[in-house]
């Protein structure tokens, strides 16, 4: 049985590209294939002209592709700063000055700098999610793969996270954002692909997606579409 079938799309640079779909649509599988965690039987993943289909995740990082996890995986016995520092050391080298300054600036971007000396295990879930993003950012990626980073966050935390995405994009990093939470995706993404039963149902701007009959059909009665972006 194929979990994904004929799904094809391209992510323009400096965009926030969202992938949505109901449970079991194949979002996580797609994410796994792109991030090198799952081996696809067929198909290609290309990044700036290079074939990165079967690269391990550490090699992807050096290509400039970093990911987060749906379930947070901080290094619990390390401080927040150490978590990010190790990512600076082993991520893609940048021309910038010393590692610690880079690590702190990554923490500042997610507003975790004041907690730099705390153990990662002492953070709240929302903070751990931000740490996860900071760690991925610290590897200096051109493409950031985000897996349901808003799941389990409060409304305020979600808004802060979405603001952060805008800032990340503004600094030149492309984002591929897989999310279950429809509102979050609609409000922040420049382009969206909709998956259902392992196929791509539609692709377009949020407005186009909201009016796509196939998408409405798939979500009919779920009450998830047609609402305004959260403000």
């Amino acid at each position, binding site marked *: 049985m194929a979990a994904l079938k004929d799904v094809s799309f391209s992510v323009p640079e400096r965009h926030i590209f969202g992938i949505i779909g109901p449970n079991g649509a194949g979002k*996580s599988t797609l994410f*796994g294939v792109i991030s090198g*965690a*799952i081996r696809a039987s067929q198909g290609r993943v290309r990044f700036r002209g290079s074939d990165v289909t079967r690269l391990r995740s550490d090699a992807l990082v050096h290509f400039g592709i970093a990911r987060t*996890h749906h379930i947070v995986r901080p290094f619990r016995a390390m401080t927040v700063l150490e978590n990010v520092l190790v990512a600076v050391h082993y991520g893609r080298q940048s021309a910038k000055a010393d590692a610690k300054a880079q690590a702190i600036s990554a923490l500042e971007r997610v507003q975790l700098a004041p907690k730099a000396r705390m153990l990662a295990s002492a953070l709240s879930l929302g903070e751990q999610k931000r740490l996860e993003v900071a760690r991925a950012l610290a590897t200096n990626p051109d493409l950031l793969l985000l897996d349901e980073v808003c799941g389990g966050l409060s409304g305020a935390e979600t808004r802060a996270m979405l603001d952060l995405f805008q800032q990340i994009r503004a600094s030149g990093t492309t984002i591929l954002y897989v999310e279950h939470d429809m509102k979050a995706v609609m409000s922040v993404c420049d382009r969206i692909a909709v998956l259902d039963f392992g196929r791509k149902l539609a692709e377009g701007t949020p407005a186009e997606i909201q009016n796509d009959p196939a998408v409405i059909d798939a979500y009919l009665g779920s009450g998830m579409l047609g609402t305004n972006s959260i403000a």
Partner: protein
Amino acid sequence: MTAVDFLNLLIAAVLLAGIYAVMSVGMTVIYGVMKIVNLAHAGFMMLGAYFAYEFFERFHIDPLIGAALALPAFFLFGMAVHWLLIRWLPKSDQPTLSSLLLMFAFWLVLQNIGYLFWGNMDRSIFTPRTLTVLTLGPISISLLRLIVFFAAVLCVCALQLALSRSWYGRAMRALIQNPYAAQITGVDDERIARITFGLGTAFAGFAGALLAMLYSFSPDFGRPFLIRAFVIIVLGGLESVSGVAFGALVLALVETFSILYVPAGYQPAISFGLLVVVLLVFPKGIGGLLERKWRPA
């Protein structure tokens, strides 16, 4: 090598595979439910061997009956070990360092208790059956190995049946697949773990008693077999009884036929050599357990 030699070796390999399967299956079951790598398995096998030996020497009880008695005795023993030691370990759905070290420590204790009781002299169980050979034209089969093979296969099949049919088997499989959901539906995981550990221990003791009829043994008896069991598990995957049977067959074939090419002194290293070859040739593992099973993405 003539066709007859080949056939003789093939039969020997299949007979060996039966006993390898029965000694590995206990480890597999415990790992599946509890995610504990039971290094003390080797110690339980050693005790099983001495169990049959003592019954034979003291009361002249046939070692086959001794092996059958080992099943309930080691079942209770395993449950006691779980109650005394294992249930105090922090629970985890992944193997932990504490569980590995605890089982290793328990193995050390069992082994050295063995030394205290029986010394380091090699023992063996010798019955009239030991040297009986059935001949079928040019083919000869050791009667004892044939009996041991059938006892082993019978037990593994009974286990497979129990796992697929009984309430316990269903609860156990539910725990393997989704511990959380299983608990919600009322499966008492502590009790299942206790029974499972008893079952795994029973199989270790049984296998040890069977092996004692074929080989001489000392308190260090289980170690080479522990490594074999591990190689079998790598070959066959950790979760299914049929995988274990497959792994046991491959290892038995390689070991038996290597007699033709490898000097006898190097025989104990064969199983590890096979492991290295498997790891190099199939980096992702035949059973796919090497990387995938660790952390669900």
